[in-house]
Every structure is written in structure tokens, then in C-alpha cells.
């Protein structure tokens, strides 16, 4: 089963490397990864699909949450969430199979985004397993070329985002605070 982790990260150089570095250092292979900015242009939303054991995932998420640039890392695998993917596909469609292809596309809710004498370009979104099926069916019509967008997800639970407040630094008061032993 695919495990999905969603992260809210600061949009800073190296943030992506820090997150993927945690995975590569442990030898985990990323199934898919998407990153894009959020409503706040200083933040990005990252969705990672990776096949690992549950106890490894718990440990991994703790480490992700330790990263300075990560505001929140959440495991969506076992919690209510909508997980979707976009697929773009080019299908070779000779005259005799065009109708069939269009019918299947309709069943899967795919849209035709380009049509030529050679074939179609299709766009489909949906559940990851549904898209697997769609791709399998289209393959039976002949040569296809597929680009998958990777899983994107949104949690159905509202999670409180805990952020650290600013801390005094570089002043005498900050120094005396440090001397108490706890920063």
C-alpha cells in the first residue's frame, strides 16, 4: 500500500533537499513527490508517496518535523484525506478505435485536450488506483505515452499548525536568559 505524507515547508533553497535527504539516507525510494506554493507565497506544500513500513514512517515523520524548514509533516496514510493524481496521456488512435477510446475516456471522466489524425491527448484526474486501471485499458488500444503528476493530497481534518514564536537574540537580555540554562 502506498503511504502518503504531506508537508508544509518554508519556500527556501535546500528545503526540498533536506526532506528528500531523509528518505535517500535511509535507502527509501520515493514513489512520487509534488511541490508547489501555497496561498502564502513563502510556503510550499509537498506531498510524498513512499512505500515503507508503518514504524519506519513514524520515525521518518518525526525527523521531518525536526527539520528547521518544515512547519508541519503529517501522515495521511491512516487518516481521512483526499488523495488525487493527474495523468496526461497520448494515445495513438487509428480510425477504427477512435470511438472506443472516447467511450472509455468518458467512463473514467477523462478529457480530450488535443485531437489529431494520429490520436488523442487525454487528461484524467482521480484516485491513484482508478488511474492505474484507466492506463491499463488505454494500453490495450495500442501505443500510449503517459506522464503522471504524482499524488497530491488534502487532509479532511483540520490540524492545528503549531508555530514557534520569535525569540530574542544577540542582545544582553537574550544572553542572560541563556545563562539560566534553558533556551
Amino acid at each position, binding site marked *: 500500500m502506498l503511504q502518503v505524507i504531506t508537508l508544509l515547508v518554508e519556500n527556501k533553497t*535546500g528545503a526540498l533537499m533536506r526532506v528528500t535527504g531523509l528518505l535517500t539516507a535511509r535507502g527509501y525510494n520515493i514513489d512520487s513527490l509534488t511541490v508547489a506554493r501555497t496561498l502564502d507565497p513563502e510556503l510550499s506544500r509537498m506531498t510524498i508517496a513512499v512505500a515503507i513500513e508503518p514504524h519506519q514512517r513514524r520515525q521518518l515523520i518525526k525527523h521531518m518535523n525536526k527539520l528547521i524548514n518544515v512547519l508541519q509533516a503529517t501522515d495521511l496514510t491512516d487518516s481521512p484525506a483526499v488523495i488525487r493524481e493527474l495523468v496526461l496521456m497520448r494515445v495513438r488512435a487509428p480510425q477504427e478505435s477512435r470511438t472506443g477510446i472516447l467511450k472509455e475516456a468518458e467512463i473514467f471522466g477523462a478529457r480530450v485536450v488535443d485531437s489529431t489524425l494520429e490520436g488523442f491527448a487525454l487528461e484524467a484526474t482521480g484516485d491513484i488506483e482508478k488511474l492505474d486501471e484507466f492506463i491499463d485499458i488505454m494500453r490495450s488500444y495500442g501505443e500510449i505515452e503517459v506522464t503522471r503528476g504524482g499524488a497530491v493530497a488534502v487532509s479532511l481534518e483540520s490540524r492545528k499548525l503549531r508555530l514557534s514564536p520569535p525569540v530574542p537574540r544577540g542582545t544582553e537580555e537574550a544572553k542572560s536568559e541563556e545563562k539560566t540554562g534553558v533556551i
Partner: protein
Amino acid sequence: MSQLMSGAKILLECLAREGVDTIFGYPGGVTLPLYDAMYDNPIRHILVRHEQNAAFAAQGYSRSTGKVGVCCATSGPGATNLVTGLVDAMMDSIPVVALTGQVTAKLIGSDAFQEADTFGITRSATKHNYLVKNINELPQVIHEAFYIASSGRPGPVLVDITKDVFQGNAHYAPVTSIHLPGYKVYTEGHTGQIRRAAQMMLEAERPMIYAGGGIVLSNSSAELRELVELVDAPAVCTLMGLGSLGSEHPNFISMPGMHGSYAANMGMYNTDLIIALGVRFDDRVTGRLNAFAPHARIIHVDIDPAEISKIRNADLPIVGDLKRVLPKLSAVLRELKPSAGERAGLKAWWKQIREWKDEHPLKPVVSDTDIKPQHLMQEIDRLTKGKAIVCSDVGQHQMWAAQLIRFNEPRLWINSGGLGSMGFGLPAALGAQVANPDQLVVAICGDGGFQMSIPELATLFNFGLPVKVIVMNNGYLGMVRQWQELFYANRLSQVTLDCFPDPVQLAGAYGFKGRTVERPSELTEALETAFADPGPYLLNVKVTPTENVYPMVPAGGAINEMVLGPPQPVAIA
């Protein structure tokens, strides 16, 4: 209020604001503007002989004082040479800030002279790292770096700064606050969990306190002592935690693990409650996991949530700063203790622990003909009385020193615990001596590790640092040889070090005294002479070449099945 200043000057100003008084470093091409600004700056620069040793020395400075250690290197090879020292600091959670120069921003990616992707290379070697290409970001970044290095679970932070940032000018206004919204530090501990933990401690019949480097890092020795006395449990200190509970304390039963004492390991095996404080259940402590404390519940207190249940599931986790959590635990214990009544099991437990202690004590081996390594450690212990700063390298001598030298305070025992970096001892002692000019600082090295750091003898001489370098010389890479003897049919492969420089000539060449001792009868006098010498001193102690460290839990073995000594000859009837 702001004034126009160069990036190099801004950097030094920020360091001063962070209370930095010493930098361990080595200059180079892109740090030229920085070193020019240092020329008439009050911050002291200690010129080492290799960047790796700058990082180790910064650690020695930090480990002996608790302050952030600072090291500095140029771009390319300078920065890559720091890496081992940074990973070492990462493994042992030592607050270090590393400053590196980078080629001018517009040259990055052009394979410029001495260019390396320091930011990429050190990503996994640090707690956090920065690449500064914009002078306006510099002050903020420097203060963030010190905050990240020293707060939460401490660790190394690297700031890579391009040459044009050092050279450029900007209006500098002092930073008064920083904001890292994603950096969470949990200090207080959960009140309910603390109460439950205290109850568990009083209910346990065979409790064990397992204290580690976290006690040292959080300066919680006094708080630990209070808790130990309230619970009245036997306490073990890990290699990183030695000294956090004084070796003389009646509840202290030495170090657990691979080369720990029999009593400590039997205690850890048979306990029904482990009170784990600032530890990470390292494989060198636990041995085979399913045979580690199989009957015990676990209370785990750590500031790093990722340490909880990483290796061994915690029945009761508390995430917080030991400095804050331990007094709260003690307060609850004081409140609950009168009603807890007679803790009948505890008496029997202590009796058992004492029996184990008496059965197989960590006793020094002494011979009339050659100096036994244990004898050397015993004499260092006797003469330093638990008061000297002892910096160890990595290997057999490290284990014997940890077993046999007493430490009555934290921050006296300095060693590379997690990474096990050979060559650590001498530069760490250098850094510790810089920070503690009036204290006796001893570097205990093997003949292998010492030869990795020989160039720093020059630094000792240059800065008049009276470090006593004691080489436990057995002519072998002893720990590897021991494993080859025990597990590889004594096929000794590449472990013989049959060339060692004459210490009198070597130390003499650097400008101070050296000596070799071979006979047990000379040892005490030789150590006394070295310790009394006002300058640095190199003492080469030739010990029994093939002595092995015992007790020993073979890798992957169970801690209750220790090998207590060399195999005895079997009599054939």
C-alpha cells in the same frame, strides 16, 4: 541606528554579540577578507594545522564549557576537511558553529578554483546549514545558527558565506530577535506523564537509572543526583554520560554496554524499570535488542521526540529538557514517597547489585614486567583524582580509560562517542585547554589515533597549551587487532604499527619535552613529571601489546552473556 560595514566585520560583530571569544580555524583564498578583518579584532583565533582538527578543537572547547564552539575554514578542501568533525559533533549532539568561505556568488557552479558544494555536502553532517549569498541576510543567519546549535538537542550548524558577502558593504543594524516558525523545542515535559513516571519509579522493585550525554549537555548533574537519591536506584552512566553522576556516588555502578561492567550489564538485563535520561539506546549499550532489559518497562526522557521509541519502545515517554523535567519529577517523588511505604523489593535489588559488583569488579591488571594498559589508566586516575579534563581518542585505551578513570564532575571526560573518530583526542584536548587554561588537560591517545593528529603538537607549542599527551603505545591498532584475534582466527591484517617516532626527538622538534616509559616501576614518576611540567608534554607509554579489553559483549550478543576475560586454558583429565 545603522552603520556601513563590510560583511566580514558584520560577521565578527555578530560573533561578538553571541559571546564568541575563540575561533579555531585555518585561512584560505576566499576567507582572505574575513582574516583581514580578524587582524585587529579582539576575538582570539587559534591557528590549527588541519581543518578537521579545528572542528575537533571547537568540540573540545564546547564539551568542556557548554558554550558553542566555533571553527572556520576556507572553501573547497577547507570545508570538506571539516566534515568528519561536523558528523562527530552531530552524533554526540555538540553545539558547534562552522563558518566556511565560498567562492563569489556569481562563480558558484562554474567549477571555480577551490569550489565545492559545501551546502550540499554538509546537509546531512549538520543539524542545519546555510548558504549566504546576500550580505543583508548575514546577521540574521549568524544569530539563527547559534540559536539552532545551542537549543533543543544541540548540534553543529554550518554557515557557508560567499567571498563577495565578506567583501561587500551594508548598513548593519544589530539583530534583536530571530524567528524560526518551524523549529520546535519542547522543554517542559507533560505534567501528567511526569506524575505517572514518578509513580512507576516508586512501584518498581528493580529500577535502574540509565543516564547519558543529555545530562551533561543540559547541565543537569545536580538535578540527576537529586532524582537518583529520591528513587534510590542504582545508576549507570553511558560513555557520553560519565561524570554526570560522580564516580564516587554510592548509587553509581559504572558504565553499561559492550565494555561495561558486569554489575551494570546484569543490572540492565534484570531490571523491571529503566529510567532512561538523555540517552539513545545505542547498539554499544543494548547489545542484541531482544536480550536487552527483556523484563523492563521503559521511562524515556529526551528533548528530541525522534529519540523516543526509535530503538526500544518507551512505555512512558516524556519529551522535554532534563533541566526542567528532572526537578518536576523530584518534586512529585517527594510528594508521593511518604505514602509509597516500604519498598521491599528495592533492598533485595541492591543486595543483588552489590553481589554482582563484588563478583566481577572492574579491576586493574598489574604486572611486574610490563606496563599493563589498565595499570596506566589506574595511575592516571590516582594522580588526577577525578579532577582533570581527560580527552580520549578512539579504541582500546578509550574503553580502559572509561572503565578505570573516575570523573567526579561532568565535562571532564571528553571523547568521540557516537562516531568514534580516530584522531579526536589531541585536538579536542587542545580546544579544552584553550577554554580552561588553568586546568590539567590530559589527552589519552593510542599510537594509531595520535599519528592522525601529530601536526597539532605544533599548535600546542605555538599557543603555550600545556596539554599532557599520553600515548598508550601497544604497536597495534589495538581494538581492530582484538577483534581479529577473537573473531577472525587471529589473522592480523593491517593492524601492526611498527614505526613510531621517538617521542624525545618528536616533541623536541616541536619545542617541548617527550619521554618513553617501558617499565612499570617508572610509570608513576613519569606521569608525575609530565603533569608537573609547565608546558606541553608527550609521554609515550609502551604497554603490553596484546592486552584485550574485557568485559566484552561481542557485537550482536546479549548483555547478560558477557565475556569476562580471556579464555582460560582447559585442563585435560
